[in-house]
């Protein structure tokens, strides 16, 4: 379980998050929604150690996350993707995924130079595992291609596979369908459901309400840095404050 308690963040005089508390279970699909600029990405940045909270606490499976460096958060079993896709474009798909296995490939510093058996077998196993992860998102046929050549939707899928390579228990997805066309959205939605069914906890951010409704078991709604609702998709959809937050903004209906 990821526990967020009284989390606050300000940049200079600008308060971006205030008194945010909720729990994310390791299992199922949990959604964080809210209009643009509500502070959703900031929540992910705080969890993954890219930013330090101004107030409040964060813990995962009972371990305190505050003050940890990003790679340490990854070691605890949290992985993430980015709102603006950040794959390694000049590497092949396979290499992208194998970067995610960095700490899982157990061989000593000298292994590569002596071409030791431990090194060769770890690399071979890692490669196989990477191909399997790519097959989960149906990209294994293009494993040797440079990631830069992928379509936007496929780059997102590669980012999923790469994140899963770190063997997370909880996967944070920041607006996984932003900028996708309807067909791509449908595909990605299926991939997210598949990932969840394989036993990974999914915690996703979205600002398009319709998309999360069919996908999430539970939803938290953020507006201007504060939580205004939490509950099942049904409860959230009918919450007057949520409707107000969404209708009161220009981007309400054009969030395609």
């Amino acid at each position: 379980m990821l526990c967020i308690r009284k989390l606050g963040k300000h940049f200079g005089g600008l308060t971006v998050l205030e008194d945010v508390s909720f729990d994310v279970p390791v299992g199922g699909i949990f959604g964080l929604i809210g209009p643009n600029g509500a502070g959703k990405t900031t929540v992910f940045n705080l969890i993954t150690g890219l930013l330090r909270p101004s107030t409040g606490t964060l813990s995962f499976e009972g371990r305190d996350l505050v003050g940890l460096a990003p790679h340490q958060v990854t070691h605890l079993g949290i992985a993430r993707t980015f709102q603006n896709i950040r794959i390694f474009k000049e590497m092949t798909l396979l290499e992208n995924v194998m970067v995610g296995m960095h700490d899982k490939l157990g061989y000593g510093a000298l292994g590569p130079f002596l071409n030791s058996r431990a090194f060769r077998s770890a690399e071979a196993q890692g490669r196989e595992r990477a191909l399997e992860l790519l097959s989960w998102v149906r990209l294994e046929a293009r494993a040797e291609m440079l990631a830069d050549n992928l379509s936007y939707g496929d780059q997102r899928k590669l980012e999923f596979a790469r994140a899963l390579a770190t063997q997370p228990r909880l996967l944070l997805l920041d607006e996984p369908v932003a900028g996708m066309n309807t067909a791509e959205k449908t595909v990605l939605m299926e991939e997210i459901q598949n990932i969840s069914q394989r036993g990974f906890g999914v915690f996703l951010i979205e600002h398009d309400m319709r998309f999360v409704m069919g996908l999430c078991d539970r939803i938290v709604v953020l507006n201007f840095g504060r939580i205004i609702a939490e509950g099942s998709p049904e409860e959230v959809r009918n919450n007057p404050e949520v409707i107000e937050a969404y209708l009161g903004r220009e981007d309400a209906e054009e969030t395609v």
Partner: protein
Amino acid sequence: MEWLANFWATYSTLVYSIGVYALVALSIWLTLACGLLSLANAAFMGIGAYVSALLSLQAGWPFWAVLVAAGLAPAFVALIIGIPTLRLSGVYLAMATLAFGEVVRIIVLNLDITGGPEGLNGIPQSTRGWHIVAILGLAIYGLARMRRSRTGRAFEAIREDEVAASLMGIHVGRHKLFAFVLGAAMAGVAGGLNAHATFFISPREYGFENAVDILTMVVFGGIGGLVGPMVGAAILTLLPELLRFLHEFRGIFNGLVLVLVVLFLPKGIWEPRRIRALFGLGPREG
């Protein structure tokens, strides 16, 4: 075979220089491979040259021990200056390492033991061709193996996107420091080889101009692989000899080359993918 002997007598220094600068170019390639724009390697080379020359001249150490010290001394310095400076990114790191190079040059210029502006004379000429070949070969082998390991992938990931790399569980700071320190050691050994090949060293050889020269070699050759930097080192070591009449303007010429390559061949002259495409072969990584 007489012509060969004559050729060697005339050009051995030049051939040695190519080998030495290939090693230095690889040392810069290593830092660039990890996204660090460091201009400190000329100074690291200088530290290696002076430390090794002094150990030969004043302490009479055997050559192999001298070379080990030539690698360790700058590596140690890199460890100390790397911890605070490697947090800087891009051009700020370039400026910090450039300033470091100037500090080293000024220290060497003003100490008695280093011979001040006159430099050091009478360094035993212990460097043999096979020393350079063996050390360069070892460096190439080591770096080539590293590229195919998780460390190599981590370097490339860091170069492309530091934040994404850290969230893959990679300790970014430690990898950068490793690349910086190892690069310093390589440059230092190259300095040691150079000092014991040329009889004489002075602070002028390891200053700002040299730092830019070395970077030019790598950018000119291409940072996509290990071959590019060495090709760049060979060409830019030979070129001034071929264009002796340009000597005064060498700095301008190097600057011009750097600008032209960056503009028209952003990946350097040695880019396997483009070369294969030129010959109608399929794309592959090199």
